[in-house]
């Protein structure tokens, strides 16, 4: 997994509430046996029409908006527990998803795949959407160590919560296997004692 420390990025706004994992990656794309290649089908049913042509008014097809931060409406990632949703977001290139609420399982899946879900207040979210609408080059800065996010258009800063174990993993670019490998001494000590 890649390290995550700070990120300053322009934003891709998706001001829709209750975006479920079926929208993030539709079920028909789950057959692959590897974790790669899901980014191309992120939000597939909003992004492409029946003939596979990009739908021009969907935000991912709008060249004005770009960046590694997805800003989404409340309750992002509900529905099925499929990890593919996180693979699709990571595969597309998102490193941060900002919302005022995330579904539990999605949050875990995202963290396991190097995507940081940042929970902000409703007011912060609203102001951020407004700022992006006024100026699409609006940036945010996320500092994981300090657990802060700032709206660089207004200068407003908020702190966010994250599980300390998961924070360590992200800061050092470690996943569960890396974590276990880093505990080799403890494992060997356990073996000696038993």
């Amino acid at each position, binding site marked *: 997994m890649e390290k995550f420390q700070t990120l300053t990025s322009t934003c891709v706004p998706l001001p829709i509430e209750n975006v479920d994992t079926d929208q993030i990656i539709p079920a028909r794309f789950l057959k692959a*046996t*590897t974790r790669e290649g899901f980014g191309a089908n992120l939000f597939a049913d909003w992004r492409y029409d029946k003939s596979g042509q990009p739908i021009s008014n969907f935000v991912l097809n709008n060249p004005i908006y770009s960046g590694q931060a997805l800003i989404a409406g409340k309750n992002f990632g509900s529905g099925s527990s499929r990890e593919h949703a996180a693979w699709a977001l990571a595969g597309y290139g998102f490193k941060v998803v900002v919302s005022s609420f995330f579904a539990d399982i999605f949050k875990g899946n995202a963290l396991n795949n190097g995507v940081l879900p940042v929970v902000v207040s409703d007011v912060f979210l609203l102001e951020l959407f407004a700022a992006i609408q006024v100026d699409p080059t609006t940036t945010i800065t996320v500092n994981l160590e300090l657990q802060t996010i700032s709206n660089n258009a207004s200068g407003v800063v908020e702190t966010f919560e994250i*599980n*300390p*174990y*998961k924070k360590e993993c992200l800061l050092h670019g470690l996943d*569960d*296997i890396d*974590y*276990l*490998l880093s*505990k*080799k001494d*403890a*494992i060997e000590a*356990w*073996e000696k004692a*038993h």
Partner: protein
Amino acid sequence: MKDIKQLRSKKQQIINYIIMTKRTLFDKIWDAHVVTAVPNGPTQLYIDRHYCHEVTSPQAFDGLRKRGLKVFRPEKTTLSPDHNIPTLLQNQPIKDLISKHQVDTLTRNANEFGLTMYGLGHSKNGIIHVIGPENGLTLPGMTIVCGDSHTSTHGAFGSIAFGIGTSEVEMVLASQCILQPRPKTMRITFNGKLKSGVTAKDLALYMISQLTTGGATGYFVEYAGEAIRALSMEERMTVCNLSIEMGARGGMIAPDETTYDYIIGREFAPKDEAWDNALAYWKTLPTDEGAVFDREITFDASAIEPMITYGTNPGMGIPIHSSIPKLEDIDPAGRISFEKAMTYMGFTPGEKIEGKSIDYVFLGSCTNGRIEDFRVFASFVKGRKKAEHVIAWLVPGSWAVEKQIRAEGLDKILEEAGFALRQPGCSACLAMNDDKVPAGKYAVSTSNRNFEGRQGPGARTLLSGPLVAAAAAITGKITDPKNI
């Protein structure tokens, strides 16, 4: 006043201490395997034994390759292909190419990573959950995992055994550890004795019908009580095997003389001084009196009758002489799925299940594919004849079971009654090989899942113990074995 307060808090401390020092079987094994506890995170648990089959492991080995890792403790992992293998002509190449590819991949991975594998044709090959205990690889006090939900089988020895996902298989291969949140504990006590003609499978099907398929979700279950203590090791394995069908993370039974008698002398079991040391440790494992479980349930074992399922999940079981529930007996929330199950099975709510004609009988699987199951089946069919229209698949759980069947002459008894033995594997339990029940046909099966399509597209499965299966094979109908 102050003194009284102090005294009270002292008393509370003592009570807390007593509660803390009284530990369950689960607590003792879990605590002994904690390598580190991640602050505000999961526990890093050491794994003593890791079993692998061909279906859930390829991506895990690929992961190791991508990271340039070796298997950390190769001697603690044992491989056996079981899900995809044919039950006839195992000496010939597997015809189904996807199956062959999976089995070949397992062989390649075993060779590349230096792991022990009991491949096709090996005298130790068989269903992984059958061969582990058979060879003395499964022992009390162990933590045991496998990328397979029925890993719970091994809990019968007084071990913490549970199924894991492919990414966790990779963790175990890489570090001999996994990260796990600690589950809650539940004790299910069976008081009294089982009636004669009632098997461990009936006990389990009864329990699941009472608790439903989600009734133990989030819990690790310990089975206790007179009826459990009276079970043989193989019967205990049947009960623990089915824990997962009520959603439990795993099931376990405290080790006792029955356990030790079963293990002693098996190939990989400890010997001599190591045996004495192990035994002394195992005897400390049973749950302390007064230890607290998160949930306790009690059943009366003497009330249990021979069971059979009528629907499409293992919780839809009834005593064989009773009737399928009427629609109004079903909780309103479950009526739609009940009606769906009725349509799939071709049954009418409220009708009797006994006397219904069946087409297939499957004796086998990690639930009921061990020697005792074949003994029960053979003793019932002895001197009788298989119903002509019934197709019976008798599939030993391993080559060792097969050998034992022949050594005891059970094969002769079965043959005289019109049955033929097949070669070991998972077979019709999940029908990944050629042993598929055709659409619309009824199969009385000693396996563990009656889901739609589990035994083949459109197949209609009725789960039962080996005795009910034997009776069905003889009469060609659903029959209470007592009535023959």
